[in-house]
């Protein structure tokens, strides 16, 4: 049955080369942990992606309950955490996953750095990776405010004051991020929500696409 559906589609749009391009490619021996166990270090990039997928999925489901409004944000988080079945688990995944992403990202970066895998011809992909790292930090920073508890509020207060220290444009940058000259309030929360849920993920998807396409074009760097 499934084979028939597949053949029906494949006959019309020749789907086989497309998924071959995506899924069917050689894994060299030196990156296969089954051959050399120490090759597990090559898994960190893929693990980062795996955790990112968890973050995206759990985040999507969290927005079914979350409200980016200073009156209701904390209450909605409290509600989904205490009243909704498995809400605690889903928010827990998003909460802990946020830290795990950074850890995996760091391990992946260390692997690439110490193996010299960033060297010619892969410099561009290193730069894209660094941009992804900044996007991730931005996601962490903006997501931290969303529960709108005391820790979130004051962490953002501190973060915004750091942005204010940027030479020449610091004050404007802070206002742009906070949505108000002085107050960290209603407009800050909606802004951070928009950045966290739409702007940064969009940038992240684009950069990840470039990252992966470059890997496929250039292949995995050779053994040490």
């Amino acid at each position, binding site marked *: 049955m499934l084979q028939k559906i597949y053949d029906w589609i494949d006959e019309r749009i020749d789907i086989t080369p497309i998924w071959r391009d995506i899924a069917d490619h050689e894994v060299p021996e030196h990156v296969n942990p089954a051959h050399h166990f120490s090759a597990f270090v090559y898994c960190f990039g893929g693990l980062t992606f795996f955790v990112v997928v968890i973050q995206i999925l759990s985040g999507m489901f969290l927005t079914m309950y979350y409200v980016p409004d200073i009156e209701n944000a904390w209450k909605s988080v409290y509600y989904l955490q205490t009243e909704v079945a498995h809400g605690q688990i889903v928010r827990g995944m998003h909460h802990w996953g946020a830290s795990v992403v950074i850890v995996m990202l760091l391990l992946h970066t260390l692997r690439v750095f110490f193996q010299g895998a960033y060297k010619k011809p892969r410099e561009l992909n290193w730069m894209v990776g660094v941009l992804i790292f900044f996007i991730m930090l931005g996601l962490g920073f903006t997501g931290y405010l969303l529960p709108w508890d005391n820790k979130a509020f004051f962490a953002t207060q501190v973060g915004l004051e750091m942005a204010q220290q940027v030479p020449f444009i610091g004050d404007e940058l802070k*206002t*742009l991020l906070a949505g108000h000259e*002085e107050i960290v*309030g*209603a*407009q800050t929360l909606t802004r951070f929500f928009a950045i966290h849920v739409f702007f940064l993920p969009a940038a992240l998807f684009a950069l990840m696409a470039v990252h992966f396409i470059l890997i496929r074009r250039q292949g995995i760097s050779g053994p040490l």
Partner: protein
Amino acid sequence: MSEEKQQVSRRQFLNYTLTGVGGFMAAGLLAPMLRMAIDPVLQPPSEGEFANVGLAVEDITTTPQRVDWQIDQVDGWYKSKPGKTAWVYKDDNGDIIALSPVCTHLGCVVSWEGSESHPNQFFCPCHDGRYTKDGVNVPGTPPLAPLALFEQKVENGMLYLGKAIPREGA
């Protein structure tokens, strides 16, 4: 058709036109969005608004007293009345001094003679930060700058306070 008149080919002309029209459309789409995003930055800086703190000038002594009042705060669509606090006294010249209680170390709240072992000083309970009566930080304690000074004015014998202006570190 002579050669030199063909500086722009038909194909080039169409490419330029398409790019121009496309760019114009893209700009038309993006301009309102970007203008919306940067609107807070382009707002005029808020004027120092003064609030009656409910303290008559004649009641101000040379000993700092704590004054609490509320201001009308508008944050976009959200209106609230957050509380403010100041330490107010008259100095030796009879000028009114209104100090912000926010410690310049890490933002705790200081109080006048908050510690029995440090009379005639402002004291911060968090890290033992101290300030002299004029709000200047005592060297060797955590704060690196004096307490902020409130903008002030007197109307009908009542004290009005505005924004707290930070002072440079000593």
